[in-house]
Each structure stands twice: as structure tokens, then as C-alpha cells.
């Protein structure tokens, strides 16, 4: 875990409010694992105050790539940073996905949930896994990086709510269809919480070990404030709160308390 000033290599708008940010951060890139995140200062003053957690979209050659949506003032500030400017970041933070090799994997992404799963898909391929990547969005305009995904040598399955691309319906329904005929050794997902809950139910029914990357409002990002918790169940079924920043953001679906 490091705190450093990273230089912006490129800031590319790939949709009306979707950006790719490449940062020169060799110390973080060298140790980053899929599913981990960085915590960025988005501005020079005291408002916005808190850092913004962004999952690592890809990492390598001394660079980190972040994929994010401009949602508020912080991310708007970030999107205005040009090559050469410096960004204050902490990272790599959190626990990433469990990596396996030589297996058959399903990756299920809802909308921006594609961000951390891209890095996972690339590393999973390098470890000799067969990867089916399920990617859903509201409509075709919400699908990004399709070519880059295909270049990973994965099988790409597309779903949109309005049917403007691929399967019409939720991405979890598309995965459910494939689950009927295919066996997966492991499954991973990131996306809106209701989609993750559906993913968890399907994984449990098919007895596929599965992990999800969760999102929660965060302050410190390194476990001090206990602000970003999610409810988990321990081995005796007792509910407790765990930090998303240090206990996660990746959790085993069986541990997550989906009802709240």
C-alpha cells in the first residue's frame, strides 16, 4: 500500500460520461491484483473532501488504467486532468479476486461492473483459464471496451435491457441460460447490488463457487473509519459488519448478507 503522486499518461473519454484514465504508478502497478482499487484525491481544496475509490481496470508496464463514470464533482475534476498532471492516490487497496488456473470461469458484469472484471479476465486468460464474459447494460450505448474485451481471447456474451444489442433482458438471465448447458468451476461478478444478489442465487443453485466485488460509500479506504461496511454472515450464521475497503471489496457470495 502506497501513497503517491501519479502522473496522468492519458485521459480518454470513451462515452458521454465514461472515461479511461492511464496513470504512471509503477509501485502500485507492480503489486496490483484484479479486484483491488485505488483511492484518489479529486481536487486540490477541501470540497470535495473525500477521496474517490476506483477499481483497477488494468495494470501493467508501470501503469494503472482506471475506467469510471463521471458522476459528481470529484469525477468531473478527474476527467479534466490532462497528461502530465499529477493525481494523489493510495493503493493498491483491498482484497482482490481469487485467481485460479486452468479452469472454466464465468465473469458477469453489469454496467460499470465491467471495470474490475476486465483486469480479472486478462489475468485469468494468462493463467490458462477458459473465460466466458457476460456483459450487460441498459442499452448498447452502455457497453464499452468491446473490442478490448474480445482481444482477451474470451467468449463474450452481451445483454441489454432494451434489446438494442445481444440478449434482451438482464445479464444474469443470460448467464442462467448458459448455466443450464455449461459447467463453470468459478464465477465472478461486479455490478448493481440487485444484479449481484441474483448472481449469488444462481451460483448457489448451480453449486458454483462465486465471488462479487461490492461497492459502498467510503471515507479512508484503509480500514480506519469503519464507514464502508457491508453485512456478512459468519460460519454460525451470525450477522456482522465488515469493511468493504479492507475485508473486500471482493467477497465470497456465500458470506454476503444479501437481505441487508
Amino acid at each position, binding site marked *: 500500500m502506497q501513497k503517491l503522486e501519479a502522473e496522468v499518461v492519458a485521459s480518454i473519454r470513451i462515452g458521454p460520461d465514461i472515461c479511461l484514465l492511464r496513470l504512471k504508478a509503477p509501485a502500485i502497478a507492480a503489486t496490483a491484483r484484479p479486484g483491488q482499487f485505488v483511492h484518489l484525491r479529486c481536487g486540490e481544496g477541501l470540497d470535495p473532501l473525500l477521496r474517490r475509490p476506483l477499481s483497477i481496470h488494468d495494470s501493467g508496464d508501470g501503469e494503472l488504467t482506471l475506467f469510471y463514470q463521471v458522476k459528481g464533482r470529484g469525477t468531473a475534476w478527474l476527467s479534466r486532468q490532462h497528461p502530465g498532471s499529477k493525481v494523489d492516490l493510495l493503493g493498491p487497496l483491498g482484497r482482490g479476486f481469487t485467481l485460479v488456473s486452468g479452469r472454466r470461469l464465468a465473469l458477469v458484469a453489469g454496467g460499470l461492473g465491467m471495470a474490475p472484471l476486465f483486469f480479472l479476465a486478462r489475468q485469468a486468460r494468462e493463467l490458462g483459464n477458459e473465460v466466458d464474459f457476460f456483459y450487460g447494460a441498459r442499452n448498447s450505448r452502455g457497453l464499452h471496451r468491446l473490442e478490448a474485451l474480445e482481444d482477451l481471447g474470451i467468449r463474450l456474451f452481451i445483454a441489454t435491457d432494451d434489446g438494442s444489442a445481444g440478449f434482451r433482458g438482464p445479464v444474469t438471465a443470460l448467464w442462467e441460460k448458459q448455466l443450464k448447458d455449461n459447467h463453470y468451476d468459478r464465477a465472478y461478478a461486479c455490478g448493481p447490488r440487485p444484479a449481484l444478489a441474483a448472481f449469488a442465487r444462481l451460483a448457489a443453485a448451480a453449486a458454483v463457487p462465486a465471488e462479487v466485488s461490492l461497492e459502498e*460509500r467510503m*471515507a479512508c479506504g484503509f*480500514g*480506519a*473509519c*469503519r464507514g*464502508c461496511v457491508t453485512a456478512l454472515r459468519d460460519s454460525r450464521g451470525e450477522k456482522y*459488519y465488515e469493511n468493504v475497503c479492507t475485508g473486500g471489496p471482493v467477497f465470497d457470495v456465500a458470506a454476503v448478507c444479501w437481505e441487508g
Partner: protein
Amino acid sequence: MEQAEKRPGVNPKEEDEKLGARGKGLAGTGCAGSGLKSRSTPQEPETGAGVNLEVQLGDLTLPNPVMPASGTFGFGEEYAPFLDLNRLGALVVKTITLEPTPGNPPPRLMETPSGLLNSIGLQNPGLEVFLREKLPYLRRFTPPLIVNIAGRTVEEYGELAARLSAAEGIAALEVNISCPNVREGGIVFGTVPEMAARVTATVKGQTHLPVIVKLTPNVTDITVLARAVEDAGADALSLINTLQGMAIDLETRRPALANIVGGLSGPAIKPVALCAVWRVARAVKIPVIGMGGIVTARDALEFLLAGARAVAVGTAGLVNPRAIIEVIDGIKAYLQEQGLQDVNELVGALRI
């Protein structure tokens, strides 16, 4: 992370040893902090040449006046990757309750303009786990360790005080009678002067350690509470705890926090905190630790001028984990710029 034996000056188990060691501590830091310097990393010297940063909070000696605010510092270990814990004026851990406390449901946080609204709800593993798993780690560092406590009843405060006093390596207790985010106890003890006094007296009766009482600003007149706990035997005061606040999500038309209301911290509350410190410092004789929105050394210096003998950095550390170190270095630089030898010269030196 560097390890060192607990500084004897802050181990108050034996009165005689404490007094003797405190003398040593003063001599040590008086000459450019040599006593502490030997335990700090060479890159981060503790004090500048000729500048004394040491302050006294009653019987408690701090190597410098800057500490973390309870609730924002976890149990210290979370910050260890970013800074040398031996450089802090004190270590102040998250509130400990007798039993493990699960805390409030999420969402627990909401950012507001220059502020942070939280409803953590005192989540902590409880006294037993603290003593067994957290304290041994914290004992390895030289700054005095201040343990913050909260009870659901007056008796629980007393029991916590007694059991923590029996443990080695704790320099002082900070009594949290001001958490706005718990249903039982919490702020009730902090808003009624008679209750605040009862809690203070009960804790004092159960411990030989210095007792710092943390006050809430969510009262009509904070000086009334300050005097009540001073009369009940408090050795020092910390103020302020968070201000009660609220935020609403217009998309969902729901409160931003699951707990509906929370405690506001961060730069947004600094003027309120500064005013409370100034008023209380004039109303009581015991030392005051000022906190609330301190981000930079300049903020901290304002609190010292207003009458705080020490300060705590809270929310700023969540944004910049090195903020507290920057505040210490900034105070030192200011003293040197101003040609001052001793940070104590600034305490209460406000010109009106």
C-alpha cells in the same frame, strides 16, 4: 515499522516511577527531543533545533501537542503503512465498549460540503478483544496511549475504567459521553450536566489514570457541561465531538444514512469547534484538547491560540493519512518562523 518500548513516562502504573520518568522526558525533549529522537527514524526527526513541542495535560506528558481523534484512527495499525506512529503526540484509539458493538447498518457515510456525515455507531470488538489483540501492538510505540471508552450505563463506564487501568501500557482514558450515533447511553450522558458529572466521578473512582472527558457541541451551553465534569474530577477535556446532522438523497427521497441522522465532522465544523474551545478554555482550569476540522498546521495553531493545550486531527487523516505528521511539522516550522522556543507560549495567546 519501528518498534520501541513504551516510554516509561507514560506508564502511570506506579506513581513514583511516573514522576521520575516524566522529569526525564522533559529533559529529553527540552534539548531538541534527544530522548525521543533516538527512537524515531532518522528521516523524521521529532523536534526542530531549539524548539520545544512537549506539552502537559495534567499529569500526562505529550512529546508534541498533536494526536489523532478517536474514531478516525482505528487501532493505530491501519495508519502504520503511512507514517511512523512514534512521531505522534499520543495514540488515541477508537471507542471501546464492554461488549463487542456491531455498529449501525450501512450506508454509514455521506460526504457534505467540506464535511463528512457518519453514523458508524461505535463499532468495536469489545474490551476483551481490545486487551488481547490490539493492546499488545499499541504498547510497542512510544507516545502515550489514550483509550476512549463508552458505556451504556454509568456502571459500564466504571467497569471499563477499572479493567483498562489494570492493563499495562495505557496512559490515559478518554471518556466518550458525546457519541450522537448510539441509542443507549452515548449523547444522553453528554447533554445532561448531572449525568456527565456522574459518569466522570464514577470513572475517576475506578482509575488512577488521567481522565479526559470528550464533550459534545450539541448542547445549549457547552461551558456548563465543561464545568460540571471539571467539578466531578476530570483531568482534561476534549472538544468537540461531531455535530448532529442529516443529508437527503433527492433521487430516492430517502435519508442518505441508514440511521437517518449522523455526526458531522471535517473542515465544515472548524469555526464551531474553535469557538467551543475558546469559550471552554476560559471557563475551566483543566487543559483542553481541541478538535474539529483541523486539516493543516494553521488550523491547529488557531486552536492553540484559542486556548487548547493539544489538538486532535480526525477526518483530515481519513483523506490524507499523513495529515497529522504534516500538522506536527507545520507547527514546528511556525514556531521557528516566529522565533518562539516553546509551543506552550502559543497556548491561549489569542489577542483580543
